[in-house]
């Protein structure tokens, strides 16, 4: 067996640990029970969306979680970044969790969105909507073209080819060709041509809503696609590509579709991120960003509707908040052996992440399913079970 196949096997196991990749609604149960629970289930996404949408009207403070009230610009900015990355992770999951393609170059399309928008606004002086639209089209075409090449390989080779493309992107940005990108200093966004409602700290809330809209869009698109006949083909590709071909479906076309779509979604996210942080910096081209995307998806639960979103938001939240945690007085007062490492945000992030892989196999999204079998038992207090017992030593 090839390594590539091994990699997909890994994906498979990861996915298999989750509830079946196909949402339960798909399997047409003999008599679909329509009680209030399922109604709530169906409407809960909208409910959550609504809660997030009205959040900026709340002046509540959540001490320890955010410093400052929920509607403070700092909190909103942080939340908006989390939302964008939630969406980004959900889009990446279309590749990784839903189709089983391990791309190490997804950051490229995000970066294309960030830099494309920035350059078109700042250097070419286009109005924002034109710049964003052009960038979206450009990023999608870029994903389509590079995907068409990269998809001639599979498995680890595919991962590495995408990584190579992204690396070229990173080099081009760092080299600052034509003075377009600003190299490692980045390029700050020229806001003079932007609508006033998107500029200034007082208007962070508008950016927040934009980010929320982006997340909602991505989740909706990914969910619709995953639930569509094409989505089923993607799920099939994840398991056995050869089989899909023998059934009469062209694996290449479907994979390219997923790749391009995910690329386009990432580009759109890049445009929003560019507005949010008011510019572009080479951090977004780094291969670490792709790796973090992978981390987000696995943290949340690949192939699930909410897992990647949760993972993305949590990751970015930690990434931003840990810097504050590291410098907090609580950490400073610890003995040197502890306070040293703990004041390094990356140390905490890395550690949290490792622990998450161990303790939430299948991701955050699997938490509820993993608890489900416990519930009746807890209720009747019959006897303790070990739903996730490790295999015996030899196995």
């Amino acid at each position, binding site marked *: 067996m090839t390594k590539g196949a091994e990699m997909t096997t890994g994906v498979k196991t990861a996915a298999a640990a989750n509830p079946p990749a196909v949402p339960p609604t798909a399997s047409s149960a003999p008599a679909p029970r329509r009680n209030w629970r399922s109604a709530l289930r169906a409407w809960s996404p909208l409910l959550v969306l609504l809660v997030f949408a009205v959040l900026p009207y709340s002046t509540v403070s959540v001490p320890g979680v955010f410093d400052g009230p929920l509607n403070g610009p*700092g909190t909103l900015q942080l939340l908006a970044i989390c939302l964008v990355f939630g969406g980004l992770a959900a889009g990446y999951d279309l590749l990784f969790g839903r189709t089983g393609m391990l791309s190490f170059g997804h950051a490229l399309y995000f970066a294309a969105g960030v830099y494309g928008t920035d350059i078109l606004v700042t250097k070419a002086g286009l109005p924002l909507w034109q710049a964003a639209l052009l960038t979206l089209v450009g990023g999608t075409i870029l994903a389509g073209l590079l995907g068409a090449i990269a998809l001639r390989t599979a498995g680890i080779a595919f991962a590495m080819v995408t990584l190579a493309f992204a690396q070229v992107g990173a080099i081009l940005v760092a080299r600052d060709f034509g003075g377009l990108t600003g190299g490692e200093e980045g390029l700050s966004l020229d806001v003079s041509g932007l609508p006033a409602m998107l500029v200034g700290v007082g208007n962070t809330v508008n950016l927040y809503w934009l980010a929320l809209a982006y997340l909602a869009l991505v989740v909706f698109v990914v969910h619709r696609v995953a639930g569509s006949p094409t989505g089923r083909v993607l799920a099939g590709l994840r398991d056995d590509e050869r089989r899909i071909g023998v059934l009469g479906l062209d694996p290449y076309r479907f994979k390219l579709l997923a790749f391009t779509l995910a690329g386009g979604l990432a580009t759109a996210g890049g445009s929003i991120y560019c507005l949010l942080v008011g510019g572009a*910096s080479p951090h977004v081209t780094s291969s670490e960003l792709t790796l973090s995307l992978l981390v987000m998806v696995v943290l949340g639960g690949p192939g699930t509707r909410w897992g990647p979103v949760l993972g993305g938001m949590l990751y970015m939240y930690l990434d931003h908040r840990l810097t504050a945690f590291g410098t907090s007085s609580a950490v400073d007062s610890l003995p040197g052996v502890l306070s040293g490492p703990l004041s390094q945000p990356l140390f905490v992030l890395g550690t949290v992440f490792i622990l998450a892989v161990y303790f939430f196999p299948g991701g955050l999204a699997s938490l509820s399913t993993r608890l489900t079998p416990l519930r009746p038992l807890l209720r009747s207090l019959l006897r303790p079970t070990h739903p996730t017992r490790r295999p015996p030593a030899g196995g």
Partner: protein
Amino acid sequence: SPQDTANGGGDSAAPVKVGLVYSQSGALASYGKQYIEGFRAGLAYATDGTNKIGDRTVEVTEVDDAGDPAKAVSAAKDLIGKGHKILAGSTASGVALQVAPIAAQNKVLFISGPAATDGATGVNKYTFRSGRQSYQDVLTAKSFIGDAAGKKVVVFAQDSAFGKSNEAAVKAVIGGAGATVSSVLAPASATDFTPFASQLTAAKPDLLFVAWAGTTAPAMWQTLDQQGVLSSTTVVTGLDIRASWPTFGAAGTKISFLSHFFDGAADNPAAQAAKKAVPGGVLDLFHPDGFAAAQMIVRAVREGGDDVDKMVTALEGWSFDGIKGKMTVRAEDHALLQPMFQARLSGTGDAMKAESPKVLTPDETAPPAVAMRG
């Protein structure tokens, strides 16, 4: 708007909120550490140890940006949202360039720190700087060749914004003075420097200007030394923080350094006060930046109260005595004119010492004024 921005108000007894966004972690953490030490010393110095401006205490909030502009922007928005009218920090150039527009959009004072990019000078009315800029480095380097006319100068730089801005500055400064300037650029990620060393040897320059930052610098110097570049021409480069000196190895004593600052480069009341105040009692490269930032903030608040426009006016054209000596905020573009130093290293290992054969006056190293862009 649903967002109800908290406001500091004009209460004369309310504390002065100052937000410092700089690198506490990440690659530039040690620069950040010097900056904050310098800042604390400077604040104490400028307020005579009270940390109060008039009746108002100075409340400093520190935020780590880990060198990432995105984090810095978030932090800046957060601080501004919480009513901070004064921001300072920016260890990395990228951070300075992206926080500066935020400051202008929200009309708060921003004093950029160790970030050396020329781009932060004249970027907008609300942005100042408390450190030196690349152009001043290059003017210092120029002092090593005396009359530039007819000389051959080669720039060896990282192929990055930092390297290119140095290259451009050399072309403008030394080339402008009549020297022919050519350059060899190498990728910042380069591992082996032999090809570049060969190119440099082949070019036979009268002066070699090296602009290299990052962890590969020791390998680069060793290769230049081994291939005989250092002994064949005058080589000039910027002197980094003290901890890096031993990594020059044998090359260290063969290089002519331009220096922003090193311990002992200047002796004045501010430097003495700073030396006493910083942990360890030894000043280093970026202590002056933090120190000057504090001095500028105290001045701004004293003269401007809570009115940012008044603060700006108070700073423009202001001269003061910092650790490095006399500094002046140039009114046109907010460049900080300051003395610069030539330096030489002697000794080996941890016992390496620097001395300054020549000090350049603020005027000698004054970059050309640029028009204010925003």
